[in-house]
């Protein structure tokens, strides 16, 4: 587990380093009161040019499977992966990598040329913090030439399915294998918009994800919310067009973001 603490904060049970009695604390509060009074009088008896106060901050770094934003195929920790497609991931220094190539522990060594491949449920994205957060992938972290919108050759788009929140249900006859609640984690646009999986480019969505042509409602961000303890399946959509030949490959670094400040004010739980 990641942990951030600063000494001097009120500890839930007991503070081993800083023992403070109720009396001392009361004195301290009184002292503050006097200082404020002096300041109000404009005398500035308590003036200082600078103060340096050292406080300790301890930070622990955990592997992806145990971090605040966990990327974990086995969220219940029983040693058996809940995710179906862990053969396509590997671990190095606690970081997960997605290997849709010969590094995958399967007989195949890549996707077919001129094909679309979806590998859902590579691992779960788990919110192990204490606040709800909007979880998405920064579309700009994928090279524009490798984005499914506007790219060519080998194109990728991270997906979320089996999501706990929002009310999106796919009713279109999309490609086989697309799950009913599956959405693009990049939105295909700039940020986590209402980006239920799309097969064609669309520029008709505004910043709230409202589609000008089909009137999709703008409760976009609710689809991306994970509350503490909740998780969804992380998957990858891969498109290889007819311009690529066998042996081609790409390597991308995608940026997975969980942002509590983007949870919409309108969000009230499951959103359904």
């Amino acid at each position, binding site marked *: 587990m990641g942990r951030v603490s600063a000494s001097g904060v009120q500890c839930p049970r007991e503070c081993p380093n800083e023992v403070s009695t109720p009396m001392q604390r009361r004195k301290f509060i009184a002292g503050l009161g006097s200082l404020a009074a002096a300041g109000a009088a404009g005398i500035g008896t308590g003036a200082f040019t600078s103060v340096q106060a050292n406080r300790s901050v301890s930070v622990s770094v955990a592997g992806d499977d145990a971090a605040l934003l966990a990327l974990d195929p086995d969220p219940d920790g029983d040693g058996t992966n809940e995710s179906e497609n862990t053969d396509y991931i590997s671990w190095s220094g606690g970081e997960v990598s997605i290997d849709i190539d010969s590094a995958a522990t399967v007989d195949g060594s890549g996707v077919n040329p001129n094909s679309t491949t979806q590998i859902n449920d590579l691992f779960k994205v788990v919110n192990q*913090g204490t*606040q709800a957060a909007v979880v998405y992938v920064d579309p700009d972290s994928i090279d524009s030439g490798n984005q499914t919108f506007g790219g060519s050759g080998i194109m990728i788009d991270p997906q979320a399915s089996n999501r706990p929140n929002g009310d999106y249900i796919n009713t279109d006859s999309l490609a086989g294998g697309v799950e009913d609640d599956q959405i693009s984690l990049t939105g295909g646009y700039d940020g986590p918009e209402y980006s239920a999986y799309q097969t064609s480019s669309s520029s008709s969505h505004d910043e709230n994800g409202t589609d000008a042509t089909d009137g999709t409602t703008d409760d976009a961000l609710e689809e991306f919310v994970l509350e503490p303890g909740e998780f969804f399946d992380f998957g990858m959509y891969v498109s290889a067009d007819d311009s690529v030949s066998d042996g081609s490959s790409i390597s991308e*670094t995608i940026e997975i973001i969980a942002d509590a400040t983007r949870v919409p004010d309108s969000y009230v739980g499951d959103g359904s």
Partner: protein
Amino acid sequence: MKRRTLIAGLGSLTVSSSLAVGSGAFTSVSAERNVSVAVADDAYAFLRLNERGSGERSEIDGGTLKFNIPGDDEDQYPSGNPTDPDGLGTDSVYRFGEDAAHDQSGLFAVRNQGTQPVEVYSTQDSTAGVPTVTMFDVDSGDLLTENSPSSPLGVGAGPLVCGLEIDTHGVPIQDEAYDIELTINAVATDGD
């Protein structure tokens, strides 16, 4: 005293909940992770597609499986007395369950080299004015469509041996071959 008890109770609650879901709030987290993707020849991909038999009705060309009906080498078969046909008749339904040489059953084979059992079927985006092509299971004779796909093809299981059914009803005769894109779909059976 009661108040202190209550605080202690809250403290314990906090501790137990942090055991369950982790400790500490975060405002935002971003993590960069690597994704690598390779494109493999159809014969080595997660969904393995192989040509079957000689005659080049089916062939792996440039890494992808292609079909030519009649086959590129159709003029060599039957051996010794080749027929060298020009094409399919119109308003007909043909089934091609083997290549021209009839040396192996099936026109092509599908093997699952991924991680999950898949159901296999073909689709064709546009059938307007062109022959309708559907894959079928050579062993059972069943057409493999979205509504009626193959039975689940297990990882590493024996290949699904397939042929193509071609329907030319309403398709005019022309010198130039029709260029058709057939999509072969393999969908995991458990929805993940």
